């Protein structure tokens, strides 16, 4: 789950990472009031969960409260990369001497947290990594020991930070690491961490991504979820414990198991078709799950045919077939359906479905070929 800048900054503040004075607003008049409180010169920042807000005109400097109000009106009317701007963060404007990049991130290869830092902050870090990789330093953190002071000093040295700022930098990096740990983040990023004209370190921006699997122990973060960034069908699917991702094609897929669901999509593509979605109904396949899955697939008007691919292992195919029949009673399906049942009790399952208006297939390839030809795609 991605957090907004203002949400991430709240977490930073609690953990001792210094942030500019500021507050979040929902309207232009609120923005004006906050700007007055902050002394006039402010930065008005759109709160949307995509990169490139600045380039899109979603971050603007205002010299007076009334200018802030005017800019707020403009930004609140914007869509940035398809996402509506509903909230603005109003921060005091700060004079900047230098910009640094600093982040703690899960590193899959070393199976440990990694600190990434660069003297070239403020811009896209992936660009820096490509063009001037020598300007990026990385230090692995032992997950049992946590961040050590000397490691933080090594980073300060590596990014050429002026010595008088080292002590404060070590505190800030500990704060960032603690914010990452305390929230089960997969990413906690400051870009830029600035040296102000008064030689103070300040986190001007903040970005955090939280591990969805850890949300059970962070009830305080659940309300931070922004449903605007998700396809409504994906939100609906999550309610039923289904794993669903919307794609662009015409063939709706319902499969048990993530790997098999991906393989099914791949084979559709190999035969000239295009999958409309990824959908893993998970273990078991009771009628309530199957009907939810059908409703979600059919909510996409582009879907011309549905391919159901079930491998019965511990869950027997006859049980799955019963679930499918019950779901078809409930959900009116007007597009053709191709179904493939394999594995434990597949014969019994197919017998149950014999009376239903469905095309059956024995192999995955056959199922894909039938679905593609029914959708009028391929050769």
């Amino acid at each position, binding site marked *: 789950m991605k957090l907004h800048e203002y949400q991430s900054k709240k977490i930073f503040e609690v953990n001792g990472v210094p942030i500019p004075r500021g507050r979040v607003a929902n309207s232009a008049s609120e923005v004006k009031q906050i700007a007055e409180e902050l002394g006039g010169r402010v930065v008005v920042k759109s709160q949307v969960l995509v990169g490139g807000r600045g380039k899109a005109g979603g971050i603007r400097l205002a010299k007076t409260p009334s200018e802030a109000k005017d800019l707020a009106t403009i930004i609140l009317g914007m869509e940035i990369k398809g996402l509506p701007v509903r909230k603005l963060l109003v921060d005091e404007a700060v004079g900047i001497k230098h910009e640094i990049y600093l982040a703690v991130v*899960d590193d*899959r*290869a070393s*199976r*440990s*947290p990694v600190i990434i830092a660069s003297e070239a902050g403020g811009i896209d870090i*992936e660009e820096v990594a490509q063009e001037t990789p020598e300007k990026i330093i990385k230090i692995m953190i*032992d*997950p*049992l020991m946590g961040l050590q002071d000397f490691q933080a000093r090594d980073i300060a040295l590596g990014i050429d930070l002026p010595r008088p700022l080292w002590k404060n930098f070590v505190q800030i990096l500990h704060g960032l690491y603690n914010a990452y*740990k305390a929230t*089960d983040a*997969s990413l906690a990023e400051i870009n830029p961490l600035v040296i102000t004209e008064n030689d103070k370190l300040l986190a001007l921006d903040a970005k955090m991504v939280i*591990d969805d*699997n*850890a949300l*059970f*122990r962070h009830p305080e973060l659940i309300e931070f979820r922004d449903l605007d960034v998700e396809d409504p069908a994906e939100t609906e699917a999550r309610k039923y414990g289904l*794993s669903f*991702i919307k*794609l662009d094609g015409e063939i709706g897929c319902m*499969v*048990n*198991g*993530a*790997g*098999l*669901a*991906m*393989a099914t*999509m*791949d*084979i*559709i*593509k*190999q035969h000239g078709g295009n*999958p409309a979605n*990824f959908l*893993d109904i998970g273990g078991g396949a009771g009628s309530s799950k199957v009907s939810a899955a059908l409703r979600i697939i059919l909510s996409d008007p582009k879907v011309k045919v549905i391919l159901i691919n079930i*491998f019965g*292992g*511990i869950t027997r195919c006859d049980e799955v077939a019963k679930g499918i029949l019950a779901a078809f009673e409930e959900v009116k399906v007007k597009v053709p359906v191709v179904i493939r049942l*394999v*594995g*434990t009790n597949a014969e019994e399952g197919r017998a149950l479905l014999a009376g239903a208006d469905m095309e059956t297939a024995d*192999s*995955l*390839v056959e199922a894909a070929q039938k679905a593609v030809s029914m959708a009028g795609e391929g050769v």
Partner: protein
Amino acid sequence: MSILVNKSSRILVQGITGNEGIFHASQMFDYGTNIVAGVTPGKGGEWVLNGKVPVFDSVKVAAEATGADVSVIFVPARFASDAMIEAADANIPLVICITEGVPVHDMMRVREYLDQKNIKLVGPNCPGLLTPGEAKVGIIPGNITKPGNIGVVSRSGTLTYEVLYAMKNQGLGASTCIGIGGDPVHGINFLQTLELFEADPQTDQIVMIGEIGGTDEQKAADYISRYMTKPVVSFIAGQTAPPGKRMGHAGAIIESGTGTAEEKIEALRSAGVQIAKHPEEIAQILNR
């Protein structure tokens, strides 16, 4: 022969009195797996599976009483890291965690601790192990495969069952089938499994089922080209997966353009691995 588990493995089931635990423990038991103990804190002294398996309060006590040398974990995600560390603390040399949804930060700590104690971990978020005719340790259905000479290793569940089933229909059986799990931070990887299969006299060919995300397959490809003498057949799922989206498994995601199916297939192909276009084709290639 086989890898990691066989008929003399002494299996302990953590979470044996839970719904999942007792269901799968009874499936394992019926398969003939040598289950010697169960653990559920607070239920020590009970007996399960028709009074044949004793339940203990802790892994340590269970291991001392029964000599268990493999632990399989069926506890909910929020208790899984504690269960893995408890098993390691009791010096169980092989720990298999079936549980899905374990937080990544927990797994980083668990992996570090288990590595330091030199304990092998399989999973989490995996279907476990099956050595056909000898031991079923996890949730792989016993009836979809038979004993044979093909080693199978995979990051996914049902996709693996699909391959085992297609193999069985072509008359092919498995030496051991191992699901290494779909999480970004997990235990044993493709490379380590290939080493075990290469050394196992009963394994003649290997099937490796990968998917998008991470670099495990690329590292395996490097190992295969340098050291493997046995043929490897592979299928990589997720060629049509969009970047930046988690495809069901927490670890199945293309990040910053890396971990794509194409790059994995390319690496494996240049290591001499035969790539199947679809899972059913694996069985056909093996039979050539």
